């Protein structure tokens, strides 16, 4: 199994969710995150005091998939998240040793 993690622009979440559902993903975890890449942040002004806000809001998505699906899923995800502008985010995957469905105790791919 693989764990796919994606950090994307918040407003692309609905597109990505729809694309992953169409691909056949049964579940995913979404977290509100903040961070920066090459696009850095933006400037805000309060009573003349300028602040550079370098952490911008992002959405972090985590999905578990079987090894053979990983590359296809990443492709689908990236396509749905892309706007072509700076700040579109990153996607990466890492191997997972085990996964357990808490309700039934099923292990491995059966737990997905």
């Amino acid at each position: 199994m693989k764990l796919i993690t994606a950090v994307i622009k918040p407003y692309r979440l609905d597109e990505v969710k729809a694309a992953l559902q169409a691909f056949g993903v049964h579940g995913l975890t979404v977290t509100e995150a903040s961070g920066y890449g090459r696009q850095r942040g933006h400037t805000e002004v309060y009573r003349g005091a300028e602040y550079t806000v370098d952490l911008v809001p992002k959405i972090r998505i985590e999905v578990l998939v079987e090894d053979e699906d990983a590359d296809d899923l990443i492709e689908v995800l990236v396509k749905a998240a892309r706007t072509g502008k700076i700040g579109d985010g990153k996607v990466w995957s890492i191997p997972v040793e085990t996964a357990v469905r808490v309700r039934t105790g099923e292990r491995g791919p059966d737990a997905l």
Partner: protein
Amino acid sequence: MPDGFSAGDTAFVLISAALVMLMTPGLAFFYGGMVRAKSTLNMLAMSFLSLGIVSVLWVLYGYSLSFGPDAFAGLIGNLDFLGMRGIGLNELAGTIPVTAFSIFQLMFAIITPALISGAIADRAKFAAWGLFIALWVTIVYFPVAHWVFFFDGGHGGWLGDRNGVIDFAGGTAVHINAGVAGLALCLVLGKRVGFKKDPMRPHSLPLVMLGSGLLWFGWFGFNAGSALAANGVAAMAMVNTQVATGAALVGWLIFEKLKHGAFTTLGAASGAVAGLVAITPACGSVSPLGAVAIGLVAGAVCAAAVSLKYRWGFDDSLDVVGVHAVGGAIGSLLVGVFATGGVGQTAKGLFYGGGLGQLGKQAMGVAVVAAYSFVLSWLLAKAVDKLVGFRVAEEVEVAGIDQAEHAESAYDFSAVGAGLARALPGLAAAASAGPSAGTAVEKSAEKPTEKAAGKAAEKTEVDA
């Protein structure tokens, strides 16, 4: 009621007192939204504490020191009205009961120290702040209110009654007084940890807008109510208050669009408050056009003044100096320029053929109140610091003062539990980790359970 009593005036002043009372919670929100989320409650509570302490001191001796018969050269009232003694239902101040005048003036005494709190946001020990409020109103506010607001046919306060300084509703006694005290306090306490390095963004601008709206609303009581009668002066004061505030809001927005490139909501809220401050001393003596001029000047100048703290390096956290001291001084001085001589007072300003005379008196009033307030506030803050320590520990400030001083958090948006409820019976056993603490908690948790069981047993017997 005795001759001279006016039901209309009394009703108006009582309602005005209630309006001015609402300004202090309004101020709490105005300030509370401007601090970071971790110190919101402390900011709110600093204003609320003034509602508590000053109300009590007012009936004990505050009213007497402020508005008792003059004790010495217009400097302070005597002790005739200690504990409000001798003030019956039928005593009149003008056309209204003395009690109505007293409750109206109390609200001014409450909001003035509350205004100071913005200068020392996020870092003052709550008990030290309470001690400071009590000392400051006693030694600074009550005497200055006597100087400015106590009229007794030329035998009253030395600035207003004896020397003709015009301060209709408190530009000197309230705003310069609080603004300069704020400067003294932030110098004594020092800068917030991370000042000029860490971003200190307002955590909730909607709260700031709500607070400024409540201040604006309450200010009609503050200014129009200061006519102490439901008459033309009150109505003109209300008109002037509205248009000066509108003009200042616009003035601030234009300044910051030109200087910083954006119209900010914080600028709109701050501009409104700057206009309210500046028109306060002037609303009973200028025309609506004069009020527009005062508002525009106050909006633009205060917008520029709030940047001084970064240049000069004093951490007046929420700009009490830039808005209240500067705005109060602008309004008080411009009375000497725009007073028409035909609204509430006969003195004329520079633009209405009065020459420089009134302007000189106004400058004297501004200088005297600013100097007295700065020196005494600085000394009192030093004294409080020596006695109990004014500032919280650095780690408390960094973690957020709400936790350490109030044992509360302002916001809980998390659906996940914040912790275990140790004080609730039944849950206590699960919460206790150590064996000794565990027994203690379990014991106290069992008691209510036994009681409940006993009651249930009794009930069964009765039923049987």
